[in-house]
């Protein structure tokens, strides 16, 4: 028999429902504002014929802003409200506790992505017929989704590690600013190479063999370019090149699995954070 996980119910329904009942007017007002913003954005995309890349940037920006809110307090609130001991003493296993909490973040992220998906769909529908918009849309959404999953996992671990809601939220946003803005600039300055040109040069190779594709990615680690290429904004930006052109560079990007590899790495890192949290719960809570 599959064990039920009460944590999922509590975080998704229990705590939210009462907050909504108490602050009904505030929630309705926020809801109306969000719908208006959403509709305006939708119309803007259609009227201005906003490209799919720009729309992806917009969606990714929203995910970067909102996804941390789904996970920054999952464990820290247990410590701050002194409820963790009760949870530790129950028969829930470390796996159930971590997956229950992480699962809450994931469900919320899926809902957010589902709400934002029509924006991407609208912009991709406006692309020229030559553009493989469906693959572009799926790969872009996958990339954004995996970045969101990474944020959820990192948030879950930070809130467990630091036991402070304020600190884990601050760290999540600060790390994003560092990774998405400062790090690529730093790499650009240190290597004296404009990164776009660098990618173009690297993509001139022949990628017919698996070894050459693997070398492409391994070389990016040794020359520091992975710090730029793993940036989801950069990944999405270059994805526009990949699907919008039919030259050597676009073919090279297809060959090296541009977008897919980055998504895989985000998921790998997310799994790492999840494992750290699981291990922490096992040791600290003696589970």
């Amino acid at each position: 028999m599959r064990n039920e996980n009460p944590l999922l119910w509590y975080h998704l329904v229990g705590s939210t429902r009462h907050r909504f009942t108490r602050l009904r007017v505030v929630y309705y007002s926020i809801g109306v504002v969000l719908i208006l913003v959403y509709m305006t954005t939708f119309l803007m995309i259609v009227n201005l014929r906003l490209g799919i890349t720009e729309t992806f940037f917009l969606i990714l920006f929203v995910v970067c802003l909102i996804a941390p809110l789904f996970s920054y307090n999952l464990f820290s609130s247990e410590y701050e409200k002194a409820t963790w001991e009760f949870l530790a003493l129950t028969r829930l296993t470390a796996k159930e506790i971590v997956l229950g909490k992480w699962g809450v973040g994931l469900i919320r992220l899926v809902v957010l992505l589902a709400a934002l998906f029509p924006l991407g769909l609208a912009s991709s529908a406006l692309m020229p017929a030559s553009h493989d918009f469906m693959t572009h849309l799926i790969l872009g959404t996958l990339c954004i989704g995996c970045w969101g999953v990474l944020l959820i996992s990192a948030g879950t671990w930070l809130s467990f590690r630091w036991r402070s809601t304020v600190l884990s939220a601050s760290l999540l946003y600060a790390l994003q600013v560092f990774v998405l803005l400062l790090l690529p600039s730093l790499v650009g300055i240190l290597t004296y190479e404009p990164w776009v040109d660098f990618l173009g040069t690297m993509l001139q190779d022949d990628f017919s063999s698996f070894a050459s594709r693997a070398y492409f990615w391994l070389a990016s680690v040794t020359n520091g370019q992975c710090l730029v290429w793993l940036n989801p904004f950069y990944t999405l930006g270059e994805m526009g090149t990949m699907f919008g052109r039919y030259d050597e560079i676009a073919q090279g990007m297809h060959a090296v699995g541009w977008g897919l590899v980055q998504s895989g790495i985000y998921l790998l890192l997310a799994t790492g954070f999840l494992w750290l949290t699981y291990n922490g719960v096992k040791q600290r809570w003696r589970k």
Partner: protein
Amino acid sequence: MLDVQNLRKEFGDLVAVKDISFQLVPGDVFGFIGPNGAGKTTTIKMLATLLEPTSGTATLNGIDIVKYPEEVRPLLGYMPDFFGLYEGITVREYLEFFAAAYRIPKSQREQIIDNVLMLTDLTVKKDAYVETLSRGMQQRLCLAKSLVHDPLLLLLDEPASGLDPRARIEIKELIRELGAMGKIVLVSSHILPELADFCNKIGIIEKGELLVWGAVEEIVKQLQANRLIAIRPLDEPEKIIQRLERESLVHGVDLRDGSVVVHFAGGLEEQAELLSALVRDGYRIASFHEEALDLEDVFMQITKGEVS
């Protein structure tokens, strides 16, 4: 049965709990007494499997709490001195949450929760939101949560702290009832009158050391080897004090509110002889009686007011 053997906890150079041992059987209500910082909470956390002991062990119904914390946890209920509650849910939902977390089958949950609500006198508040409850009611809800899975051992750390007099009395009654139900209840406090009423066993801890433990009456009896005798003389007490100090069995004499309090090492025979000797010597004595020790006297005699 709870069997604690040489339980020890060190935090760096600080020894918080020094090799304490005691045994409790179902139905025992054990008062764990000690000043703040004596090591009560550390001991309780070790028994609750939340803290790993540096050495020593404890078994509950034969299961080692150090080696098999996961097997012991379903057998224990824990109420810390400071705790929070999941907010935004009703009292019933809160208990359902823990019933599910303790893997109580859905078909049994409603009945169990009703029983626990009745026992803790929270039935009328079952639909109230947790955060709207008073402090006393939250304490009772925490106790109700600890009882949902019908544990054998209940660890209650300062359960009456911060409660008003009425809530204190109610929680004491509840603990007494739990003992009568055959549970092992370990309740800590630094306020003696709180425990004196309902504990059948006590343990006094100071500086991490369990100075004494056992049945309340036995401990009092042991300490009464050095009896206190109150003598009320009609004449000036100084004269009788000088006379008493010459007695070999008298270890000390104090003057309290006109009465002479004698620390006397003899038994009933020697007491009778002392009284006869005083009367023979011409002292006029209005009253002569042995003072009974209560839990506070025991505590004061044993402890020095030090923390670990």
